[in-house]
């Protein structure tokens, strides 16, 4: 510590709760190895910033360079010539549909499970089992979820959710199938943030509500859930981010047709039973690893994808609120958006 600061004028008392940082002390007096460590820290921090800067700038240059307004309104077409392979209207629609299905299923389910886990959780062993089931979903690679989903949706009794082949086999790949499995992917994030928020609600709020003669169920519905709305919303936004960014489930469960292919004549239902693509599978298809191999389209679509993710990121920050964000721990703050962060309580 700085000797002068210790002996000399007393420092004003820090605000309660504020992090007290000792006055920066020169590193010149440190042993060489300590100084190396110090500079390595700086180097890593700056390197991380540079990597992100490079990713964003690279994607921007490549993405904007190949982005044409026409891409947003043209249907994709299979062609080896990049000028003829159309735009990504269908993938954008696909992303919207999948996100909508996934969120619509995951949000009520996730909130329900979280409420049960925090407010009821009886019998206790069952609650613990459910808790670990949520952890298992959070930890399972999405490819595994995807091929499990394919098994389930190929069952004949679920044939109404996808295409029936003439010989009676069920195709098992459709917007329904992909959307429902995506809901599993988003579930842990929604459960996690709802539970975290519920545990922050002071007990006196619940007691006040009980004292007014409200039942537990109506306390949850009318008092608890409205009070944690922003946290639930940010959990849902996180889940949406994860759904939008996932590729494995789409390539396996959405059938890998470039354009949206409806099944049968029913307007909405037929579409949802049909196959299609999303932005992620479009990028995969057009990357050198996929069959399309038209990097320009891949760059343009990836840029759009990145912008969507950035917007969602901003949305989560806005929902969590700048001031409240500062009160969160650094780990929670960092974990606000991320695909594998439900592990962090």
């Amino acid at each position: 510590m700085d000797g002068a600061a210790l002996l000399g004028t007393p420092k004003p008392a820090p605000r309660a709760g504020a992090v007290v940082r000792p006055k920066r002390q020169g590193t010149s007096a440190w042993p060489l190895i300590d100084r190396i460590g110090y500079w390595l820290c700086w180097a890593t921090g700056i390197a991380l910033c540079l990597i992100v800067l490079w990713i964003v700038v690279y994607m921007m240059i490549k993405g904007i360079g190949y982005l044409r307004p026409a891409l947003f309104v043209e249907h994709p077409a299979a062609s080896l010539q990049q000028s003829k392979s159309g735009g990504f209207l269908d993938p954008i629609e696909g992303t919207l549909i999948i996100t909508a299905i996934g969120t619509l299923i995951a949000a009520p389910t996730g909130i329900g499970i979280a409420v049960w886990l925090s407010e009821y959780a009886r019998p206790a062993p069952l609650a613990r089992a459910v808790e670990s089931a949520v952890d298992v979903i959070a930890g399972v690679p999405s490819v595994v979820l995807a091929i499990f989903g394919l098994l389930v949706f190929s069952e004949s009794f679920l044939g109404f959710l996808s295409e029936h082949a003439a010989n009676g086999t069920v195709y098992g790949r459709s917007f329904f199938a992909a959307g429902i499995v995506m809901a599993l992917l988003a579930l842990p994030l929604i459960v996690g943030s709802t539970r975290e928020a519920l545990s922050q609600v002071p007990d006196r709020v619940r007691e006040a509500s009980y004292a007014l003669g409200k039942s537990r169920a109506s306390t949850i519905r009318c008092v608890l859930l409205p009070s944690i709305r922003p946290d639930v919303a940010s959990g849902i936004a996180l889940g949406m981010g994860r759904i939008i960014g996932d590729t494995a489930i789409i390539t396996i469960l959405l059938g890998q047709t470039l354009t949206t292919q409806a099944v049968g004549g029913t307007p909405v239902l037929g579409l949802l039973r049909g196959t299609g693509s999303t932005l992620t599978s479009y990028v995969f298809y057009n990357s050198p690893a996929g069959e399309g191999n038209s990097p320009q389209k891949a760059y343009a679509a990836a840029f759009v994808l990145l912008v969507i993710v950035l917007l969602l990121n901003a949305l989560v920050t806005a929902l969590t609120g700048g001031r409240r964000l500062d009160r969160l721990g650094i780990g929670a703050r960092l974990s606000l958006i991320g695909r594998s962060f439900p592990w962090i309580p």
Partner: protein
Amino acid sequence: MRRRTGHTEDKRAERTLGALAVALLLLIGGMIVTVFVNAWPSFSSNGLSWFGPGGDVDTQLRAMQESTPLPGHSIEYFRAWPLIWGTLLTTVLAVVLALFVSTLAAVFLTEFAPQPVRRILEPVIRLLAGVPSVVYGLIGILALAPFINHHWISTSRKQSVAYVVQLNGADLTTATVILAVMITPIMVALIAGALASVPLPWREGSAALGVNRWRTIVRVSLRTARPAIVAATVLATARALGEAIMLAMVAGGRGFAANPLDGLTFLFEPVRPLAATIVQEQEGLSIAPLAHTIYAIAAVLLVSAALLSFAGWAAKQPLKRYGIRA
């Protein structure tokens, strides 16, 4: 509407929500059972040698896809070692790389970074975590792989192994670097969280004894946060293990057990991790033997992921003893 008494309503709410939770539990249980049931034919016909080396794994997968058994073997014949080895290599190398980077970054973030720098670095790390894996894969295959191919792999190096495998930049190094970038944010978040919650008096005590800041961090903060570092490593391993799309794009997709005895060339040899194999072979899910093999791979991933999740949870327990939530 008739007013129900609070009690009945309460019971109904509890039952409904409980049923939802139980349904989830059953679904997950069902998933584990289904995957194993479908994987069983592959395991039972190969025995424990499933995990061992033996022949070219790409050829075995192709044989299953074409439903023509390899001469002298059953149709289910499969030796996963090259894939397992590829998974181990990419995962371990990436986690080791990310461990160094993220520990330093977490220390920087919590201890050294001035406020303005921290305000930049936090969103940067969050952004790094938010980039979809397919975008990482795209950057890897279109930017990093060609770069490594042109600048790092000499023609003579390519020729030295040309009769076994082609080196084209989509390789172990590319996969490892990108994977490390992908798992760094998780690790930084966990480690920084733990570092930030080390009780201030402990650090002050060290400083009061005349220990400089760096030593205080190493001897007090990092030591206290050690369980969190272990947990971060374990959880990042689970993440790296399950990464499929990015690795399917950049790792080379060749079931080749990269050989460390090849010297530096080893780093430029293609690999084929387990999860990536599932994505690449998914067309074959309608062909029974290949589907069994794919489900067997999925079962291995499922078990490893579950074990790692549990290990991560267990590793974090000592922190609770200090009353640190991380």
